[in-house]
């Protein structure tokens, strides 16, 4: 009877979005009379940082500071259609829709500015600080505030744009059944080190080292917090969390936070993350969907580490002490 050490590795491909009846998301962008921009979406921010990212994408496309953009994700009854923020699709799908809408709005904004400055719209550029200027002659400029006022009260223009991003439905090929369920893959690899007590079946995670390839990190700090949190969620899925420990039997299933095992601040393993940026061809500014992927590779890595440590394959989650002990017993018996 001893504490045994093991190391496991796992790598994953993670698709962005869904392939059901097609995968659409729409966005609308319009300016207020004072030259702020509204992004209207039905895509919901459930804490993953969607609003911040959409504001950045819209601001970057129109050429204004991020704090000039307000994102409204108010109501799926009245907003432009979105399939939803799941399957790590929010940044990729909604981001592309926002880019398209923001481009159209930017075009109208430049046209109004061109009329005010009596130049061609194609000769204009934004300075990123809230002004529009003539390329090569920045002294000839107008603030976006004044452009919006002019559009609203003088020229009768709506500085607005419509965006739609659709991944069409993919049907399986008749002969082979092959299909293209997704357009854009993120990747990750985890190495986990564990200690397994072969007397009690208890697993202690010592270190978790992750590499995530996520296209481009549109907000590096937010990506980091999602990946670090997600990494630990993956460990938690591997070792602790379930509502049905004896599935399909409901016995001993947790019914509240008291009985549902979740990690606390005292249960952290030493975690490392490395972000690789390989911009995706069809992603907004190269982004992919890292959301759910960040909690995936840790699970097979821990299972492999447990196998490395005590030589039993646990293929049912979570990898509880009971399952390890039963497997050890079965191996000893055979």
């Amino acid at each position, binding site marked *: 009877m001893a504490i045994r050490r093991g190391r496991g590795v796992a790598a994953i491909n993670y698709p962005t979005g869904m392939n059901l009846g097609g995968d659409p998301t729409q966005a609308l962008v319009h300016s207020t009379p004072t030259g702020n921009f509204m992004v209207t979406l039905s895509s919901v921010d459930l804490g993953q940082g969607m609003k911040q990212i959409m504001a950045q994408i819209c601001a970057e496309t129109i050429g204004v500071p991020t704090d000039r953009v307000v994102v409204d994700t108010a109501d799926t009854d009245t907003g432009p259609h979105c399939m939803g923020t799941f399957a790590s699709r929010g940044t990729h799908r909604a981001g592309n829709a926002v880019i398209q809408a923001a481009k159209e709005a930017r075009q109208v904004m430049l046209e109004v500015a061109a009329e005010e400055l009596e130049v061609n719209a194609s000769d204009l550029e934004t300075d990123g600080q809230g002004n529009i200027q003539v390329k090569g002659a920045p002294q000839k400029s107008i603030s976006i505030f004044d452009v919006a006022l002019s559009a609203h009260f003088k020229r009768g223009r709506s500085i607005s744009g419509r965006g739609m991003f659709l991944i069409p439905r993919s049907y399986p090929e008749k002969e082979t059944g092959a299909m293209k369920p997704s357009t854009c893959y993120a990747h990750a690899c985890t190495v986990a080190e564990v200690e397994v007590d072969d007397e009690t079946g208890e697993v202690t995670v010592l270190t978790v080292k992750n590499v995530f390839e996520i296209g481009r990190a549109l907000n590096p700090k937010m990506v980091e917090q999602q990946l*670090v949190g997600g990494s630990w969620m993956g460990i938690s899925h591997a070792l602790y969390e379930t509502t049905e420990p004896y599935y399909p039997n409901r016995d001993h299933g947790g019914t509240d*936070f008291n009985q549902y095992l979740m990690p606390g601040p005292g249960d952290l393993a030493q975690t490392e993350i490395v972000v690789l940026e390989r911009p995706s061809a069809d992603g907004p500014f190269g982004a992919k969907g890292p959301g759910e992927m960040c909690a995936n590779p840790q699970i097979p890595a821990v299972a492999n580490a447990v196998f490395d440590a005590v030589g039993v394959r646990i293929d049912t989650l979570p990898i509880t002490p009971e399952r390890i002990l039963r497997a050890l017993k079965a191996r000893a018996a055979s």
Partner: protein
Amino acid sequence: MAKVPVQFTLNGSENAEFIESGTTLLNALRDKIGDTSPKGGCHQGTCGACSVIIDGELKLSCLTLAETCNGADIKTTAGLAEGGVLHPLQRAFLDAFATQCGFCTPGMIMAAKVLLDRTPNPSREDVVDALSGNICRCTGYEPIIQAVLVAARANSRTAA
């Protein structure tokens, strides 16, 4: 159900309410008084999201009956900023990206405040211990722990 008068200080101001007997402090704060900074995660004392400070002690407002708070001095995260200036803990949480969805944040900040009030220079273990009653489903514990340590250092600098 009969209503009972309850009077307490909330973040420095006097509050007097008629509250249905049996109402939790959490529900009284959120639904009656309109301070929604304490969050209801579990309503059974296991997540820490509803943490508030009552007479200097960290308490779970979901397990505290409002009517037992007569005369109490109650502090919530909503009252931490002074004159538009964020409390060092709030500042540190922002700077360290220690919130994701933010649901656990007010409870974490209350637990951290009680820690720093008593232990101005905590060790990492002290912080982990102080936060161990608070669950973060976004699992962002590492930046949260870091933020508390940073706030402690900021405090000791201004005190020096």
